Structures are given as structure tokens and as C-alpha cells.
């Protein structure tokens, strides 16, 4: 009984949000593009077998081939099929971006809600740390972090043995610096939410801090978290791709959109197409995530919506 009573108004809120989201046509188009991209990346093995090629098979007699029936986007400097590698690269890049965004959102949410709800010394310390991280020159720092030998770091020693594809490491280092926006937003929301009557009511009924934070503060701070996390995915893809491009991120032979471009600069005379496709894939994905974030922002925050 109580559950249906609680659900009815929530559903109409959801419908309103959905309608506002649908009005943002670029965001809807972006959502469709992203779904197609993810589906295509997931279907990489199917495409591989349909074309009868092998993503890792090196064929030095078939280097730099142009588009053909067997290789719709041609072959790379080792004679591997570019399309299939793009799809596998997409798997890696999208997986890294989504996992990292989620990890960063979790860190940011925890820090933000504790700072905002507890206030006082905890807030002061956590927010100084956040300000400090925001003031860091991100890219140079990420390069240093990526160059660090994990075996020398006490806590990260375990990561050294992950087969050295660089997957776990890149997720950790980007999440480590990428949580600040969410932390600030959640703190702001928690600061105002903790003054609400229902929080007071919960406290008088004897609910403890963690319970109030989890059941009363967080559900009401979901919108900014969702928007900020969506917008962060684009940036994470850009960071991952540039680190992989510089040879510090995802290590070959595992393809990512970034490391597929690693050799592209030297090969720009022989094979400009090799430099074109992976970058275009990154570009399209980042644009789509950014528009999706814009659309979600308009939909979830009616005050900022157009009239």
C-alpha cells in the first residue's frame, strides 16, 4: 500500500522529466548514437566473424590497404583490419570511461555527502583537499601518475600484476583526480538538504548519520550526480585517449581509440586514414556524451529549463 502511494507522484515526475528530455533533440540523437556505438562495440566478435578477419592477425603483405569488401575501412601498418580494431578499441575506451566515471562519482559522492552533512572540521578539511585537487595541472600530473612504477607504490603494488594492459591503472589514476565536481555538487546539495524538516524528523526518530545520509540526503542529490557524471564521461575519454596516444595508457596489443593513433603521426604521409577514424570515433563519442549531459541537465533541473 505505502509503496504504491509513494510511487504514483514519482512516476509523474519521471514522465515530466522524460518529456523535457525528449524536447532536447540533440540529446535524444546523442543517446541514440551512443546506444548504437555501444551495441556496435559489443558486437565486435560478430563483425569479426562476419567479415572473416581476425583483429589480432598480423599480415605484413596486406599493410595500408584501402577499403575493400573484406576490410571496409582498410588495414593498418601491420595489416590488421581497421574496422574490427576500431570496434574492439571502442569496447576498451567505453568500458574504461564508464567504469572510471562511476568510480569517480562514488568517491565524489562519499566525500561530498560527508562534508556537507557533517559540516565543521570534516567539511573544512575535505573541501580544502578538493580545492587542492582542482588546482592541480591535470594533464601533466596524469602523465606522471601514468609513468609511476606501480611496484614502488605501497598501496598500488597489487595493480602491477594485472597483465600490464594498463586498464586498471588508468581507471585508478583518472578516478583519483576526477571526483571533484561531483564532490562539490553533492556537498552543496547536502548543505541545504540537511536543514529540511524531514531530516529533522528522521533525526528525532533516532536515525543515525549514515542512515540519514543514505536514505534522505543522497536520493535527493541524484540529479546533479547524474548530470555531472555524464558530462565527465566525455572528459575521461579524452584523458584516456591522450594518455594511450602518448603510450602511457592502454598498452598494445589491446586496442583503444587512443593507442590506435600512437603510430598515426609518423604514418601521416603513408596512411592518413589511420589517423582519421579512431579520432573521429573519440570525437563523436565525446560530443554525444556532452550533449546527453546537457539534455539531462535541462530535463532534471526544471529551473534552468527554457520557457
Amino acid at each position, binding site marked *: 500500500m505505502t509503496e504504491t502511494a509513494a510511487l504514483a507522484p514519482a512516476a509523474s515526475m519521471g514522465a515530466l522529466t522524460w518529456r523535457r528530455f525528449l524536447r532536447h533533440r*540533440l540529446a535524444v540523437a546523442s543517446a541514440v548514437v551512443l546506444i548504437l556505438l555501444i551495441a556496435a562495440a559489443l558486437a565486435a566478435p560478430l563483425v569479426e566473424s562476419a567479415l572473416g578477419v581476425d583483429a589480432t592477425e598480423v599480415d605484413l603483405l596486406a599493410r595500408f590497404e584501402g577499403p575493400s569488401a573484406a576490410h571496409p575501412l582498410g588495414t593498418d601498418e601491420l595489416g590488421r583490419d581497421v574496422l574490427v580494431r576500431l570496434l574492439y578499441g571502442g569496447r576498451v575506451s567505453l568500458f574504461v570511461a564508464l567504469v572510471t566515471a562511476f568510480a569517480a562519482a562514488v568517491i565524489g559522492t562519499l566525500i561530498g555527502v560527508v562534508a556537507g552533512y557533517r559540516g565543521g572540521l570534516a567539511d573544512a578539511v575535505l*573541501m580544502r583537499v578538493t*580545492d*587542492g585537487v*582542482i*588546482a*592541480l*595541472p*591535470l*594533464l*601533466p*600530473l596524469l*602523465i*606522471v*601518475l601514468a*609513468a*609511476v*612504477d606501480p611496484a*614502488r*607504490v605501497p598501496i598500488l603494488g597489487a595493480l602491477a600484476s594485472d597483465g600490464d594492459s594498463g586498464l586498471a591503472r588508468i581507471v585508478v589514476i583518472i578516478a583519483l583526480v576526477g571526483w571533484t565536481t561531483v564532490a562539490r555538487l553533492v556537498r552543496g546539495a547536502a548543505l541545504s538538504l540537511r536543514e529540511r524538516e524531514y531530516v529533522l524528523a528522521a533525526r528525532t526518530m533516532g536515525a543515525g548519520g549514515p542512515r540519514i545520509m543514505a536514505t534522505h540526503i543522497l536520493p535527493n542529490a541524484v540529479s546533479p550526480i547524474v548530470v555531472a557524471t555524464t558530462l565527465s564521461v*566525455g572528459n575521461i575519454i*579524452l584523458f584516456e*585517449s*591522450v594518455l594511450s*596516444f*602518448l603510450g602511457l595508457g592502454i598498452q598494445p596489443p589491446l586496442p583503444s581509440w587512443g593507442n590506435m*593513433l600512437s603510430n*598515426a*603521426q609518423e604514418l*601521416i*604521409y603513408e596512411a*592518413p586514414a589511420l*589517423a*582519421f577514424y*579512431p*579520432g573521429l570515433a*573519440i*570525437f563523436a563519442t*565525446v*560530443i554525444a556524451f*556532452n*550533449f546527453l549531459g*546537457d539534455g539531462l541537465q535541462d530535463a532534471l533541473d526544471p529551473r534552468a529549463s*527554457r520557457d
Partner: protein
Amino acid sequence: MGRYIAGRLLETLIVLAVMSFVIYALMGMMPGDPIDIMVQADPNLTPADAARLKALYGLDRPLIERYGNWLAAALGGDFGYSRVFNRPVIEVLLPRLGNTLALMGLSFVVSLAVALPIGVVSALRPYRTGDYAINFAALAGISVPTFWLALMLIYLFSVSWGVLPAGGVTSIEGGGLLDRARYLILPVLTLSVASAGGFTRYVRASMMETLRQDYIRTARAKGLPERRVILHHALRNALIPVVTIVALSFGGLFSGALITETMFSYLGMGKLTYDSIMGNDYNLALICLLFATLVTLLSNLGADLVYAWLDPRISYHGERGR
């Protein structure tokens, strides 16, 4: 005001001090130390020699002690020698700084010159075709991977058409302003695209917000020409938050110059930072990173001060950030 600035400067110094330790510690975790590199280069060096050298340079000491020694020397103005350039770090750094400032200054001017008019036009006719096109272009500018954009520009202008150099600062015979300008066009273009996109979005948002204010309605109601309403009443107020964002973005631009400079082999701070990290040039890398941090911190401080200076409604009293 004076007290506020002093407080913020102190805060900046503390963050810088903490960062210097963090970066120092991180450098120590990068593979190899200077002696390991010497051992690789010289097969005649025995392990005993290596151990003696490590003791001589203090590399066998604990991290805190090494950091303390570095800090004491740095505070005395001695930042050590660059391993790769064999010259004092400061001597390597200063000429590069000039090149980076030229690159960044020009990108700043270019991106603002593009973003201001476009953002205003977009805000004046929102939710029309033109606005959507500008919005799309601005977001595209933010979303394009810098290194890929640089690659594409090099391909088009240097490889295909052969009209502009693919990289460097001047041609070998060196020379005039015109020669330098040719080498600046592509890097400036690359660096400007992303910031122009960001600025355009801020100008548009700020302008739309301002146009909704009562004083704009008043200005129109008293019969001022639309041109005057927009340029004098709306734009001037809309620019206040934009100035803050522009100042804030300075640190980001400094960090973003790393990719652009590396792609175009432009001999600036960004490329120096990258090369020193990759080349295990520890003293140099440390100073480069700290310098980048300092620039970011100062631009944040500058943004706050400029904001308060432009907008008399902001006071320094009361708590910040609430």
C-alpha cells in the same frame, strides 16, 4: 581586502608546498633514478660504484630527508641541474616560458575574438537555427581531442597542401616576425578551438541570464535604442562572470598547451614538461610541474579578485564559498 589577499596567498603557498612534496614523492616512484640511468649508459660502472654514487648524491636516504634537502636548496634559489640539458633548471626554463606565453597569449586573443561576438549573437536569438548551429560548434570545439585535431591540421596544411610548417618554432635560417608567425598559426589554431568553444558557451549563458534582468526591461521601457541596451546595459554586466571563467581557464590552457606543443614540436613549457617527465629529467620535471601548479593557483586567485573588483556587490567579508 589586503587581509583577504594575504590569506589567499598564504593558502596558495600551503597548497604549493604540499604539492611539491607529493610531486617529489611521485617522481621517486617513477622507474629508475639518475644513478640507474648512469649504470645503463656505462657498463664499466660496478654495483659498488653505483652504491657509492647513490650515497654521494644522498639517494640512499629516506624520502623525507631527500625532500628536505631539495626544499632547502630550492628555497635558496638552487633548483639543481637538468640531467638532459646539463644546465641549471632555471636557464632551461626561461626561454621556453617566453615561447609558451606567445602561444597562449595569441590563443587567448583569438578565442575571445571568436567567442564574444558569436556568444552574444547566439544569446540574442536563442533556440533558433543559428543558435543551435553555434551551440553545436561550441560543443564540438570542447569535445575534439586536441592531439587528433593537431594531426588533422598537420595533414591538411602541411602534408596535403604544403602551405604551413608541421612543427618547430622558426625555420633553420631563422628570423623575422613573419617566419615565427607561420610556425604559430597551426598551434594557435589548435589551442584556440577548445577554449573558444568553452568561452562561447559561457558568453551565451551569461548574456541570456542578463537579458532576463529587470534593468534590461527598464532600459527598453525608457526607449533606449536596442543597440545601446545590448552593448551598454546587457553586455557589460554579462561579461563579469565571463571574465572569471576566462581567468580560471588560464591554468587549464597552460596544461592543455602540453599536447599542442608536443604535437607541433613547439619549444615551450608544455613540451619541456612532457620531455622532462619522459626523459627522467627529475629536477626539471619537478620544477615544470610546480610551475604549472603555481600558474593554476594564481589564476584561480586572480579570477576571484577580478570578480570582486568588477562586481561591487561581492564583499570580502563573510565566509567564502557558502
